[in-house]
């Protein structure tokens, strides 16, 4: 088991470093630097001085090494677009809206999805099942910005019940959270339904029923636990993916979160911000997948007790 953990860790680290190199190269390959903006034409000498100050005049690999050294100390530099704070501070500030909205979306959507899947599985092939199927299919296939758009149109424009944009008050949070909740809900509804149907058909459930165990106990104590493995392992990556904010949702609802800052960083060629954002999110995904792998290995007795990985 330890061997497995170490191997995955090494693998993830290698992946991360490869990604960081690629990103770095890509970023600096974009023609035109941050100080080439036409609106602020700079004198060549001044430009050279600024470039030197930011270290932009050095060869690429030197810049990379210096940068990664900083990253290991959690120093991501200073964003060009707001030199008053560090990138870390800016991102910390920007992450809050994404985390609140996205996190709430997942934390509300997942349980709802599980409940939906449960009900659908227990009333298989009834109208409840059918409706749940349709909802989960729609949730997964309709792109998130379409959902957001429809939510805005229906609830803000036509019915005028809820505000459509902004971030300040909780009332403004409702629609974005609903938009975020769609995918987790649909995913978990699907997983729960199919996992439960699989387990309910297994012979050991019939044995439990024959023993006289009440249906409720059977479901919660036995069936759900067996179905839990894929659901648990998918949770962390999903949470990370949603809690880092969707570019579209934030654009539509005018939320100043990570997604919004990413878009603006590309437009303004703000290297430190861009790099930091993608690196941070990549690290979080790496961590999420790594933990999910570990969780799966722990939960699956075949791997935990088997000793040798099946890879």
């Amino acid at each position, binding site marked *: 088991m330890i061997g497995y953990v170490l191997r995955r860790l090494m*693998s993830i680290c*290698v*992946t*991360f470093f*490869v*990604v960081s190199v*690629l*990103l770095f190269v*890509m*970023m600096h*390959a*974009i023609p035109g630097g941050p100080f080439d903006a036409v609106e602020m034409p700079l004198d060549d000498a001044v430009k050279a001085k600024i470039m030197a100050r930011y270290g932009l005049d050095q060869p690429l690999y030197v810049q990379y090494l210096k940068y990664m050294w900083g990253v290991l100390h959690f120093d991501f530099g200073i964003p060009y677009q707001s030199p008053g704070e560090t990138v870390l501070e800016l991102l910390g500030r920007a992450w809050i809206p994404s985390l609140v909205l996205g996190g709430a979306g997942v934390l509300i959507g997942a349980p709802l999805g599980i409940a939906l899947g449960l009900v659908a599985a227990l009333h298989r092939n009834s109208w409840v099942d059918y409706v749940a199927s349709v909802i989960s*299919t*729609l949730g*997964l*296939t*309709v*792109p998130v*910005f*379409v959902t957001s*758009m*429809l939510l*805005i*149109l229906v609830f*803000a*424009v*036509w019915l005028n019940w809820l505000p*459509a944009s902004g971030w300040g008050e909780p009332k403004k949070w409702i629609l974005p959270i609903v938009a975020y909740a769609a995918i987790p809900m649909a995913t978990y509804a*699907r997983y729960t339904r*199919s996992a439960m149907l699989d387990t309910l058909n297994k012979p050991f459930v019939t044995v439990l029923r024959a023993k006289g165990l009440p249906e409720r106990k059977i479901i919660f104590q036995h069936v759900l636990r067996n179905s839990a493995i894929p659901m648990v392992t998918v949770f962390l990556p999903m949470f990370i*993916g949603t809690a*880092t904010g969707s*570019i*579209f949702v934030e*654009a*539509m609802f005018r939320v100043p979160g990570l997604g919004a800052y*990413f*878009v603006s960083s*590309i437009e303004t060629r703000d290297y430190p911000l*861009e790099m930091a*954002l*993608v690196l941070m*999110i*990549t690290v979080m*995904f*790496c961590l999420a*997948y790594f933990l999910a792998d570990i969780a799966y290995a722990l939960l699956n007795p075949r791997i935990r007790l088997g000793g040798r990985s099946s890879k």
Partner: protein
Amino acid sequence: MTQESSAIKSAKPIESIDNMLAPRNPMYYAWRRFIANRAAIASGSVLSLIILMAILAPLITPTSYEEQKFLTENLAFPSASHWFGVDDLGRDFYTRIVYGARISLSIGFVAAAFSVVIGLPLGAVAGYYGGTADWLIMRIIEIFSVVPPLLAALLLAALAGGGFGNIVLIAALFGWVQVCLLVRGQVMAFRNREFIRASQALGASPLFVIFRHLIPNSISPVIVGFVQAIPLAMMLEAGLSFLGVGIAPPTPSWGQMINIGINFMFFYWHLALFPTMALAVTVLTTTLFGDGLRDALDPTLKG
């Protein structure tokens, strides 16, 4: 020879000709399963309709998509003469939506094709040779899985500029992984089947085995991968155009139109509604059609 053995010796083969059943290719059964799936059939029909409309666009639209003919009726709501209304630059909105279908569908199909071109050989090699080759390809796939595709696509699009060709390549770059995994899984499953060994015993080279046996038996995952890559590519294009780095105006793209529509949403909601619905319906039907294909061709490929 004992009594038992001589009894065995005298048994004669009894083979009869069964002419009543026609030879049935395995694909035939897949077709039957597909027909039985109502959602897939419905989606397929709607999708065919959309494709047809896209192909016949010039014939079914009153004007071209860039002519600003109706400036006097700017932002008009849907009416008999303008089925979807008029957009902010005086163009017939219905026309723009229909031509937008061309963009989305063509990007979807071409990008999916490229995804297969990249993913199929990589998956076959990874599945057949295993070992180091497989390890390497899985590492590459891991790299692609860890970086959020949208962010990376955004970076690439900003780097390369927008435009049809670049968008197709970027979409293919993020679509090949799924195809590769599907093909790899199938090849690995078939790798140790005895007919592969029999072929090798006959003297077949690895290339012969891959092309003559493994790839034909991988048709199902390839078809599934291809059809599933289409909606992904379409969404990527719509997303990039929405953020301004995709297809540039005046060429109509639904993503781009949604972006504009947001600005006018509160009063002229038709500018937001129609591209949104068009995109949603197209993505939905392609996805359901793809799922139907997957279920028909190989139910074991599910989730």
